């Protein structure tokens, strides 16, 4: 999951990186209690887990208390690339002599962390890499050796940056600590401000944490639970399903048992011009009870106009699937939205027999037949 700036800075600070001082508020009313701690001129920054805040008006300066209050009022509640701003970070403005870029991310192909550095920070690093590639250094970190002093030296001298290798080494070591300690796939500081005195301060930060490691990251899990998330995502999480919102304007919901199959379903539906609203991954070996929960969850979304269930039953048994569908629909008499079911595998015959008894449910043989069945109903979707 992607952490917002303020949370990323909290983790930086925990590992000893200077990320400045700041306060997070969720409503302008909180300002009164905090105003004494805020240095002016101040910066107000919308907290959203996406980039492009500046262009969207999500960052503003304030010279005094009145301006600060106005900025908070205007930014809180704003929508930036689909995210409603429910908290802002207020910090003092930092004067800097230069702005660097520094990140550590997982290089999937090399299977190791890679650090990227540029003395041209504060802008999109991909743009710098295109326009001035000699100003961007990329260096693999051997996970068994970690960060070494020559890494910092190389980043500086190979990009022609002027700065103290020891200071950069210290930030790089700590950023690597963040990367390891919090199970990150990305830790980015941009810009990394260089003050007139040569100190380095993280002015903005971005962290992506491996979802699979949340069980050992209580701090990140608590943060996640503080977020206003899609209620369907939350409901699915409470049942340990994976719910994937797809096309907000879509009308077909997909349920399957494995992400590969879900991708195949989405691909097949999309190829025929059908738009998928959301997909739910049951995982392996779901029981009738869990199937019923999944069906209900998807049908609870009123903008779902049809449900496509596609199960390849290896561990999951087809009769369990059918019983689950029956159970969920029994609680929704007269719902009327079409449910197309395709399954294959263990106890298929029993499953088909059960499905035959449920009004509004159509069983099909094979994925493409399922897609055909949905296309027939295209006008209602």
């Amino acid at each position, binding site marked *: 999951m992607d952490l917002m700036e303020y949370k990323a800075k909290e983790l930086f600070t925990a590992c000893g990186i200077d990320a400045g001082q700041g306060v997070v508020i969720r409503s302008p009313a909180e300002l009164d209690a905090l105003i004494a701690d805020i240095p002016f001129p101040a910066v107000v920054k919308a907290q959203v887990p996406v980039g492009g805040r500046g262009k969207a008006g999500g960052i503003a300066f304030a010279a005094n208390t009145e301006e600060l209050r106005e900025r908070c009022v205007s930014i809180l509640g704003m929508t930036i690339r689909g995210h409603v701003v429910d908290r802002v970070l207020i910090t003092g403005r930092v004067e800097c002599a230069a702005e660097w870029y520094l990140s550590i991310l997982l290089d999937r192909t090399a299977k190791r962390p890679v650090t990227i550095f540029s003395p041209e920070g504060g802008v999109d690093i991909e743009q710098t890499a295109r326009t001035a590639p000699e100003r961007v250094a990329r260096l693999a970190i051997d996970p068994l050796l970690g960060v070494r002093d020559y890494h910092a030296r190389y980043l500086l001298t190979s990009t022609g940056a002027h700065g103290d290798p020891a200071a950069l080494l210290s930030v790089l070591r700590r950023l690597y600590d963040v990367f390891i300690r919090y199970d990150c796939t990305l830790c980015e500081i941009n810009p990394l401000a260089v003050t007139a005195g040569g100190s380095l301060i993280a002015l903005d930060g971005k962290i992506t944490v491996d979802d699979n490691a949340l069980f050992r990251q209580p701090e990140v899990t608590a943060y996640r639970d503080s977020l206003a998330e899609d209620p369907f995502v939350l409901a699915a999480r409470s049942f340990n399903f994976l719910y994937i919102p797809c096309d907000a304007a879509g009308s077909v919901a997909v349920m399957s048992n494995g992400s*590969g199959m879900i991708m195949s379903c*989405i691909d097949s539906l999309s190829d025929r011009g059908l738009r998928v609203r959301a997909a739910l991954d049951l995982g392996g070996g779901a029981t009738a009870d869990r199937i019923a929960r999944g069906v209900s969850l998807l049908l609870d979304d009123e903008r779902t106009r049809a449900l496509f269930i596609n199960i390849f039953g290896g561990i999951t048994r087809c009769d369990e699937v059918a019983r689950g569908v029956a159970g969920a629909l029994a609680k929704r008499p007269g719902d009327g939205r079409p449910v197309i079911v395709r399954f294959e595998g263990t106890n298929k015959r029993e499953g088909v027999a059960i499905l035959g008894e449920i009004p509004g449910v159509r069983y099909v043989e094979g994925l493409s037949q399922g897609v055909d069945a949905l296309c027939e109903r295209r006008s209602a979707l």
Partner: protein
Amino acid sequence: MSILVDGGTRLIVQGITGREGTFHTEQMLTYGTRVVAGVTPGKGGMSVHGVPVYDTVREAAEATGANASVVFVPARFTAAGAYEAMEAGIPLIMTIAEHVPVHDMMGVYHTARRLGATVIGPNSFGVISPGRAKAGFMAHAIFSPGPVGILSRSATNCYETVYAMTRSGIGQSTCVGVGGDMIPGSTFVDLLPLLESDPETSAVVLIGEIGGGEEELAARYIVGMTKKVVALIAGKNAPTGRSMGHAGAIVSADGTGSAARKEELLRDAGALIAQSTEDIPGLLRGLGI
């Protein structure tokens, strides 16, 4: 021949006394796999479906001469299980669990190379050489022996493909669940050479996904292969930047890892591109299989 597992495989089941471990041990035995030992800490001396249980992999290996292990333990203990097997000198290790932290697998990946072990998975159904042996949890009834090797990042898409192939009378030499995680223990390029040099494999099906660069690397290798390859890339229409459950299936903003790029490179390398699993038997028939 087949690759990785066959009649000569002497398999350990790590976590044999767990629910999944016990169930699939029986399934594997039924399929004819030589499951020679199980391991569960504190349960040494027991037996499960006639298979002796040891406290450590090292003891199990010393007592039975095992040459492979399948790790049926929860995600958070999977790396520890793999390390134990590697340190005990087991050359082939199948890891099954979904949701193993990617940092855990980063360590396992590099350790496997250092110690000369082959790790398959995680997030994998395992490996099956139809009619000979299986190590994992795949629903084996749909598989049939034959000349096509399959490497798949997705279990369900592999099942669909195998089911369609078997119904079309096309059997499989070995099917490997490479797993869909960001860092699998073995990637396509690690495994393609084994299929290329397996005399019983005549063609290869490669089932990939969006995200990562493994299909791109595979394309480079395929250029020099003598055997034909049919490839499917799932996730063309997946929402960008969102996890599709396989942590790996994230399309990066700039298009690397995209289905289009992967398909293009694979096609240029001489592979036939399937649009869906249902296309695959037909494409294989076209190759004379």
